[in-house]
């Protein structure tokens, strides 16, 4: 599915803590990040992408535009999504994550605002957050699907490929396979210019 990035404004993280005083002993285990879309009309959310930094669980709440005059309410669209299977160890700690429309609990038709609630119950980490947050909406539909593969697997040895139409979402690594360069002759040989 092609997608278009939506410009968003990510507000600073707010730590949820009991009491007012920030002690050096305790660290907040819950952070909230608000994401607003100041210059964009309510849109249909396709994908949320980010780089994790030691967040263990993620909850997302969304506020959608309603046609009636009732004030828009916050609805949980993702509950306690696990990013780190073991919060005390490094597994999944710095991974890139994509969350799609079909993983959400509610319809994401007219998104106004998002609220990301990050949880890290382990006291081992000094800080945690999510980085490089990007929100995508559905791109124009006429670009079509770039790759279609027959679902049968190696058992029958079928690798049927149909490249339908070129699209701008062609993954970069397909055009740049792992280089296996031959080194230039060592030291003495004078290289050709250009």
């Amino acid at each position, binding site marked *: 599915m092609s997608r278009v990035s939506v410009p968003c404004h990510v507000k600073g993280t707010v730590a949820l803590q009991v009491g007012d005083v920030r002690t050096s002993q305790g660290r907040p285990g819950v952070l909230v990040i608000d994401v607003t879309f100041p210059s964009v009309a309510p849109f249909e959310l396709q994908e949320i992408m980010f780089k994790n930094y030691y967040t263990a669980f993620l909850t997302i709440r969304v506020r959608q535009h309603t046609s009636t005059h009732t004030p828009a309410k916050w609805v949980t669209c993702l509950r306690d999504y696990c990013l780190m299977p073991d919060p005390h*160890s*490094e597994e999944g700690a*710095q991974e890139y994550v994509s969350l799609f429309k079909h993983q959400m609990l509610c319809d994401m038709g007219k998104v106004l605002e998002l609220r990301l609630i990050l949880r890290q119950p382990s006291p*081992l980490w000094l800080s945690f957050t999510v980085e490089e947050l990007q929100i995508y909406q559905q791109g124009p539909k006429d670009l079509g699907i770039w790759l279609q593969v027959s679902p049968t697997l190696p058992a029958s*040895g079928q690798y049927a490929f149909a490249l339908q139409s070129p699209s701008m979402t062609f993954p970069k*690594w397909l055009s740049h396979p792992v280089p296996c360069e031959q080194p230039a002759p*060592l*030291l003495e040989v004078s290289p050709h210019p250009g």
Partner: protein
Amino acid sequence: MLQEESDLALIIAQIVQKLKGSTLYAQLERQAWASLQRPEIKLESLKEDIKEFFKISGWEKKLQNAVYSELNVFPLPSHPAAPPEHLKEPLVYMRKAQGSWEKRILKSLNSMCTELSIPLARKRPVGEQKELLNKWNEMGTDEPDLSLFRPVYAPKDFLEVLINLRNPNYENGDSHSFRTHLGLIQVPLKVKDIPELKEFFVELGLTAGQLGIDDSTQVPPELFENEHVRIGQKVLSEQDSAAAQQYIRQGSPTALRAELWALILNTSSQPEDILYYEQLKTNVIQHDLLVDSLIYKDVKLTASNDDYYFVFEDYLYQVLLCFSRDTSVLGHFAYNSASPPKSYIRGKLGLEEYAVFYPPNGVIPFHGFSMYVAPLCFLYHEPSKLYQIFREMYVRFFFRLHSISSHPSGIVSLCLLFETLLQTYLPQLFYHLREIGAQPLRISFKWMVRAFSGYLATDQLLLLWDRILGYNSLEILAVLAAAVFAFRAVNLMEVTSLAAAEAVLADLSTLKVMPLLQIFLFATVT
């Protein structure tokens, strides 16, 4: 689900992309063209008939083996937004640590170079080339003056780097709290515990037959050994990589081992491969690298002094010198956290078009590197075959033993796994050793870095390496290290210094690997 289908599509696309550049692709194309002349291929069902032909003639099996090999070696495609460094190593601080370690090695190499005023590489004069060609099969008789050379680094230097590895986001207080690890490794990687290891190594259990245990003279061969050999021969005749990998988890009969390993590593003996090796040999003869002297020194210091391996000295030179010049090894740096050192042609410092990798394969040998090759000499006598097997073993397994990464088979995880196993299941021993200043990792590190080569008896070592291939993981090295400590626990409890602890564990050549592993994993009361 939509997500899984697109993941699968990505994996298939990646494998097809890789295989398209291989000789197998060209061979399959040739075979398909040639098959058109066969009577059973009909135009109206061309695709199906050719597929049927491939199935019967064994080419489909070869393709399956190639796909299986790709799945084993290359990591799955990661998130599309992840940069290539992320595929090498996801954790940023480990990448940084590996980068600074590499800088140190290069500095050491460069300073040795300038001290001795030897160029990194030079073209050999014709006379010297002829001489080397004549002496190719007996390079061991050469006695060049290597006294001024010293190895670039030894395993204990690398251990110091790993001990100082810290995650900046981790609570590393100076005072000991529940956060500091009791062992030497202070990074919180995820390692398996014994229940998970039992599940992972289920074929090593007490109810399954093992070569290394159930083939001893007291056990009648009808119980296990004969049947196992028969199955092994069947696997070899079917030429199926995946079946061979599953089979070898219970050990490989000595007679079948060479072929089984070649099948699992998916090496071929086509004329192109022999030609490739000959080309590398020509490169060795034409150019002399500084790294060659390091290899000479390493072989003379380690393998030549070993009772089991000194006979293979000449083979080691033939393999390692060619290995340094093999640029196809550069491919493995896509999933290795290390990066090959770059050098620039004289006078063109900083210009990317004049950058070359030094050595050509990007791997700088350290003290003990030749021990990775030595055990293979027992299995393969033909240099080009021996070379191929070593290269495959290196780009699949051995590179993880000397680069800093968070991979479960990486040396950092192996060290942490060893220390965790020891602390959890032998807490008294661990505490005692720590109190006398003999941290267990200081003794077992050298075993794991060399994959126990040179420490175990050769037949036991080959049984251990069978399991490394079978499970496609190096974790068994850490388990064996812990099992050795468990075996000698009584003696170790009585020592009072690091030197004495080392003396207790100095000689492992009488140990039987498989009983130790079985007892530690499956028969220890916890």
